[in-house]
């Protein structure tokens, strides 16, 4: 990991500034700090999911009621979302997805690799606008820009957090 070690705090600040009130997640070690911040903040509803596609549907419901939702997931979870993403296309619903990438640098688990390699193309096929954060210094700005894009255009946008950014998982 390089650069600003407090990037999760800055990402959380960007989500709050962007009016996000529902943060849904299937946990990932790379999102641990962000999840803890969401749980500590009484103005944010933190929603633990059993599978990532629940978060896609949740975001559509939130927007029907005028609220903004964000989904935290790891790259393997993107595969679970595919058909539910059609809900966002058909109804033009906004969603911000923050995806921690496994299966890139120093990945100890080869089973993470196939979905990692498919993550960006799969999101692209489902018309999700994808950007990628490589460094700690750029991540909060990219999150803020994707958030604006998602809610202004009423579409799904994803920021991929590279494994270099979040650090390889150590055991």
């Amino acid at each position, binding site marked *: 990991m390089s650069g600003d070690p407090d990037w999760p705090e800055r990402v959380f600040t960007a989500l709050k500034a962007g009016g996000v*009130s*529902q943060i849904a997640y299937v946990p990932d070690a790379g999102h641990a700090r962000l999840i803890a911040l969401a749980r500590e903040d009484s103005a944010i*509803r933190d*929603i*633990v*999911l*059993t*599978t990532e*596609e*629940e*978060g*896609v*549907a*949740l*975001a*559509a*419901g*939130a*927007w*029907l*009621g*005028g*609220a903004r*939702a964000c989904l935290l997931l790891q790259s393997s979870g993107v595969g679970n979302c595919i*058909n*539910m993403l*059609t*809900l966002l296309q*058909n*109804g*033009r*619903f906004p969603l911000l997805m923050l995806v921690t990438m496994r299966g890139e640098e120093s990945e100890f688990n080869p089973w993470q690799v196939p979905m990692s390699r498919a993550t960006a193309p799969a999101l692209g096929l489902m018309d999700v606008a994808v950007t990628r954060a490589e460094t700690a210094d750029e991540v909060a700005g990219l999150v803020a820009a994707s958030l604006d894009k998602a809610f202004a255009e009423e579409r799904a946008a994803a920021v991929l957090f590279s494994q270099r950014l979040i650090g390889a998982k150590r055991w």
Partner: protein
Amino acid sequence: MLDRREAVRELLRNRGDLLVVCGLGSPTWDVAAAGDDARNFYLWGAMGGAAMIGLGLALARPERRVLVVTGDGEMLMGMGALATIAVQKPANLAIVVLDNGAFGETGMQESHTARTTDLAAVARGCGIPLSLDVDDAAGLARLGALLHGSNETLFARIRVLATEHPRVMPEKDGVAIKQRFKRAIGL
């Protein structure tokens, strides 16, 4: 066993300010048959997502009551949502499953609920204690009252006959359904 059209019409009679999300297929036709309303969000796809759309809406609008009407097949596909909803415990959310024990839109193939799965018990096991099993008019009347008066998350499985009714198709354009819904609740 109840007739699905009559049961839905009864639940939506005097609906007050109820917001309704309906699962794809027969529940959408049933809700449309009870009378089109701008406060209905009809699904034509997104199988497995109805209950979670209801949760997002219920959390966003805590002052409004939200009813999800779906079928056993749709609920089975997104069964984990019951665990997720139980953690959140929104007092203004009700999930009603019209359980005909079959995948009605694809040729009435038997579903899990006709064989082994009890969705009311699943909901209870996930942590939704107010979980009703409705199969007669008295049960439906109790459910109708709870839709407007419950102060905890409500789940109900209504046993319905596996009969096919003529399709009553509402608006199909997802953006139009969304915009109409949002305008109706002042957004």
